[in-house]
């Protein structure tokens, strides 16, 4: 099998000097794919994603983007390398307008950003209507769209979403998932952490079930949904 586009390979480590949270955990994603990390509470899902984004101290393991070892880079440098990250909370600039949020997303770019902004507005039409409104005044689902749009403004080569549907209603969740599929159709590989395992696995090309910081099950979304053990232990039958 050829090298995946983005891979966190055999990652072991924890926050600061704390105990290890991840144990030889491997997660990867390829262009056009949606990879989803699911697992019970405290399994290290968000931690695994933060590890790939450089917010964790590694004891061993590497992170490679398009074959290049980026394990030593800071999160800021990884953004420049083409990684877009949407944190779970505090992921927008609340007092700034939607349009300003998108502009700030493109802060590192020196070229014309209008085309990318149009693409984002095309993906999230509601943002175009609300572009002069302060992002903090929007609904939860709309704020998540701003957050994803902000990350897309750098024209990332890979997009990482930390629980994009946390705290939104089921209807909004479905809509967000639709939008995420649409983003993925533009060819950007998407890696996301999800609480809503069943829905997430339904749209996943690749699923990772983590238990206590280790890879417990790996497969396509369908395989995992049909896997008797995954269903029993974790999806609730």
């Amino acid at each position, binding site marked *: 099998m050829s090298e995946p586009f983005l891979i966190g390979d055999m990652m072991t480590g924890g926050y600061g000097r704390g105990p290890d949270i991840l144990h030889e955990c491997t997660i990867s994603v390829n262009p056009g794919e949606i990879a989803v990390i699911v697992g019970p509470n405290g399994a290290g899902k968000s931690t695994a994603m933060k590890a790939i984004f450089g917010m964790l101290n590694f004891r061993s393991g590497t992170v490679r983007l398009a074959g290049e070892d980026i394990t030593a880079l800071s*999160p*800021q440098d990884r*953004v*420049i390398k083409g990684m877009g*990250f949407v*944190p779970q909370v*505090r*992921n*927008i*600039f*609340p*007092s*700034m307008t939607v349009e*300003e949020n998108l*502009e*700030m*997303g493109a*802060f*590192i770019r020196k070229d014309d950003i209008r085309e990318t902004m149009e693409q984002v507005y095309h993906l999230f039409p509601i943002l175009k209507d609300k572009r002069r409104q302060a992002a903090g005044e929007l609904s939860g689902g709309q704020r998540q769209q701003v957050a994803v749009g*902000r990350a897309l403004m750098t024209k990332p080569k890979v997009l990482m979403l930390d629980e994009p549907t946390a705290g939104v209603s089921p209807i909004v969740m479905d809509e967000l998932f639709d939008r995420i599929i649409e983003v993925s159709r533009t060819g950007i590989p998407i890696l996301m952490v999800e609480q809503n395992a069943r829905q997430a696995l339904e749209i996943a090309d690749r699923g990772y079930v983590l238990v206590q910081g280790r890879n417990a099950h790996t497969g396509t979304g369908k395989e995992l949904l049909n896997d008797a053990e995954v269903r029993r232990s974790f999806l609730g039958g």
Partner: protein
Amino acid sequence: MDFLNGLVVLANFVLIPATSYGAQLALGALGVTLIYGILRFSNFAHGDTMAFGTTITILLTWSFQSMGISFGPLPTALLALPFGILATGLLLVGTDRAVYRFYRRKKAAPVILVIVSVGVMFIMNGIVRFIIGVGDQNFADGERFIISARDFKEMTGLAEGFALRTTQVLTIVVAVIVVAVLFWFLNKTRTGKSMRAFSDNEDLALLSGINPERVVMVTWFIVAGLATVAGVLYGLDKSFKPFTYFQLLLPIFASAVVGGLGNPLGAIAGGFVVAFSEVTVTYAWKKVLTYWLPDSLAPDGLVQLMSTDYKFAVSFAILIIVLLFKPTGLFKGQSV
């Protein structure tokens, strides 16, 4: 006629002075609020920053005067002002490099930075007194009045005079220009927007590739500009004395808190609220009321709610009331 006379007295002793004082406080409070929003601490050295900027401007004004350079009817201090701002900016950035940056890197709690700023305040306090002494300095020159009380009486035939001093009008005009430029900068330029982004959500700003050290440096220079302009305008309008500037800290903080710390619009509104409260509470209303009320109701006493010596009590009371009942201020700011 009585009504008009009363109005003239009110404008002369309350409206105009309070407006120019309010503009000075607003400029001061803008500086405090910017530091709070971006560097996340209350800067107690702000009053003495104003004093430092004014000191440099005064020294340059004197040397300009001795060289025979003047600004026609306007005060020479306006010519010296840009140099004063530059010197203050260098002092603030230097202080940041030497002191604040150390604590920022250690991610010190805001309360520690507040205490650090108290230390900086004492040092700046000393520097200013060292350079210019503790006494009163008068450095206003140029045309003193736009309308003098006697001209006004002759023009209108009213019994009461109305004087409009150059410095009062200058204060308001300069404040309007400075605020307009500041808001344009914060809302329209890339650097200004990155400062607001940094103030809104520091972590996300870092993720977006905004350079924190640059934001901090630009902030200090803007604060230097606001503080020096506020200090020079106050000094022209009244007079310059280091201790008075130290005392200005209280009404300035009251203004920033009333408006909502971290909110620039709030700082401006707060400045005027505090200035008008201070002036109206300490003003003797006898004359105005004598004109406006029927003779039978004319007051015997001065109708002064508080002696002017207590004017700081007004800002203090406002500060406490706001903190008790609306800690985030009139406009949406951060709570302290």
